[in-house]
């Protein structure tokens, strides 16, 4: 059985009288250990699909099974707990909490878990180590470069040991060189921890680093790359 199974996902947005069809029926399976890119022109529905998979938005139609669980049937609190347990997010704009240090940002999702302070700190150090930022824990986000911030964000996504990390255009705000470094870190984590990565991108060089490439257009999947 696949880790994630999405069946005939549709998402409509109502803007006044006009209705935007962001997803027009998407079937998708994600397997354990995948490293997958979503590619497609602007407006093709990449972000929408990631949001639905990440359980931070509700499909208009369709079902998502995560490890056999229908996440559409969860209450808001159950969804939150589900995300804390299973999903990590990386955003195009990093979305670090500006008043917290890098260390505290990474620690923040762990506040939800029943961990002692020492356990938490150990995990944070591990995660920062994994993204190569062990030295910069005391810095505030505004004291870090874009690439460093995104690495902090990856550490934050990683620290809860989720099974899937969803990254919406993680490299779009970075120069190419830094973007490729970020991708390398993601690849490394994927291999080390078998964390599933699904990320969207416009950049052909970035998408070519994926093991599986999914093309989207007008709210549909148009081609699937090789299964891992």
């Amino acid at each position, binding site marked *: 059985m696949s880790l994630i199974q999405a069946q005939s996902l549709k998402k409509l947005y109502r803007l006044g009288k006009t209705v935007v069809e962001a997803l027009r029926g998407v079937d998708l399976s994600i397997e354990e250990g995948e490293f997958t890119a979503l590619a497609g022109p602007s407006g093709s529905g990449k972000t929408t699909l990631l949001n639905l998979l990440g359980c*931070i938005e509700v499909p208009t139609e369709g079902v998502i099974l995560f490890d056999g669980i229908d996440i559409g049937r969860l209450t808001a609190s159950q969804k939150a707990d589900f995300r804390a347990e299973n999903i990590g997010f990386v955003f195009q704009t990093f979305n670090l909490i500006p008043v917290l240090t890098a260390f505290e940002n990474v620690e923040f999702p762990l506040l939800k878990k029943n961990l002692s302070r020492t356990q938490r700190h150990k995990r944070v150090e591990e995660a920062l180590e994994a993204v190569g930022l062990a030295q910069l824990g005391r810095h505030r986000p505004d004291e870090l470069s874009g690439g460093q911030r995104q690495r902090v964000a990856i550490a934050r996504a990683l620290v809860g040991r989720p099974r899937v990390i969803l990254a919406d255009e993680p490299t779009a705000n970075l120069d190419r060189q830094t973007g490729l470094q970020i991708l390398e870190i993601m690849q490394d984590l994927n291999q080390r921890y078998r964390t599933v990565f699904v990320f969207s991108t416009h950049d052909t060089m970035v998408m070519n680093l994926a093991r599986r490439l999914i093309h989207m257009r007008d709210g549909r999947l148009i081609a699937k790359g090789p299964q891992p």
Partner: protein
Amino acid sequence: MTTVEFLPLAFRNIRRNRMRSMVTLAAIAFGAAAIILAGGFFQDTFLRMREGLIHSHLGHIQIYKRGYWDQGTARPFEYLIESPKPVVEALGSLPNVQLITPRFSFSGLLSTGENTVSVMVQGVNPDGEVRLRRIEGIPHADTGLAILEGTDLSNDDPFGVLLGQGLARATRLSVGDSVIILTNTVAGSLNAYDFTVRGLFASPSKEFDDRGLRMPLETAQRLLRTEAVESLIVLLRDTRHTESVLAQIHHGMAETYGIEAKAWHELADFYNRVVALYRRQFVVLIAIIAVIVVLSVFNTVNMSITERTREIGTIMALGFRPSEVRRLLLLEGLLMGIVGGVFGLLLGTALAHLLSIVGIPMPPPPGGTVEWRAAIKVVPELLLMAFGVATLSAFFSSWYPARRASGLVIADALRHT
């Protein structure tokens, strides 16, 4: 997830926009300080009025012959304490009793030769009254009944009397003038003596100020041809002992000596009404201050939450429940209230002290005749109330913004710029 772990974040979020937080904290602090000042002013007014009445007329407890309060107004001379001595001794043995002084009040006619007015005469023990009217421990107040002109009563001058300043004005009498006072004796015949005006007094009671006259008790007794006294005024070491001493008098003594006792507050009808009125005004004031604090905190929290929409979306995406996000934001409001409240307490107490040292000049109170200086009396309940209003209104004004934020669709919040 415990709320405590959100504390550092909540604190830093408040410090994030310093200017805005300062303005909000100032609003909360001023609100709390205003409650302390207004409440402390009322407290001080109550205290002065109360102590003024006690130390001029009422004492803490008044002792009469049993039945005086029901029947005495119609036939006062039938309800006299014929032998006060044993009663005084018994009262004197009670704890916390500081002074017992006898009085005899009756009505009479005062004639200046030109005109005649009816007056309320009080025969008093001059030494006892001197001790009764001394007020201690209240700034800018030292006497209940003030001697304005001339000198106080003296047993060496049995026919020297004191006039209320209102009475003196109405009769155009001044110190040194001669008057005749005419009254019914206890037995029912008429008697009159010549007196000299020895001094003028100002009383906290306008009625007594306008119609009152004081003479030595022994002179009054000679005028009325009696050995009895009408009442005994009991002064305690502190007003708070009133109830316990009263209970002891009611319990046993009243029966043994055939007397009845009244506490000052049973006789201070006007005072009680003023207190009730001020209390109500104070409640209205607190409500107004709470509304102002709520509006200002609401505005800040609402703005700061709107600015942080994407951040809040991120926090929820990381797996925090709506209820947890709500808790974080409420904690911010509460912290703001606590910090503002503490500043308010400091500001309020400091201003209260300053104003108390300087003293606030006040016109005579309703029913009174003397200009006075008010202070601000800060009592613990007032501090608690000010702090409570500050924290609670800050907390509750975060309620709606916190609810709204925690109800956002996460994906929408993340798209927010």
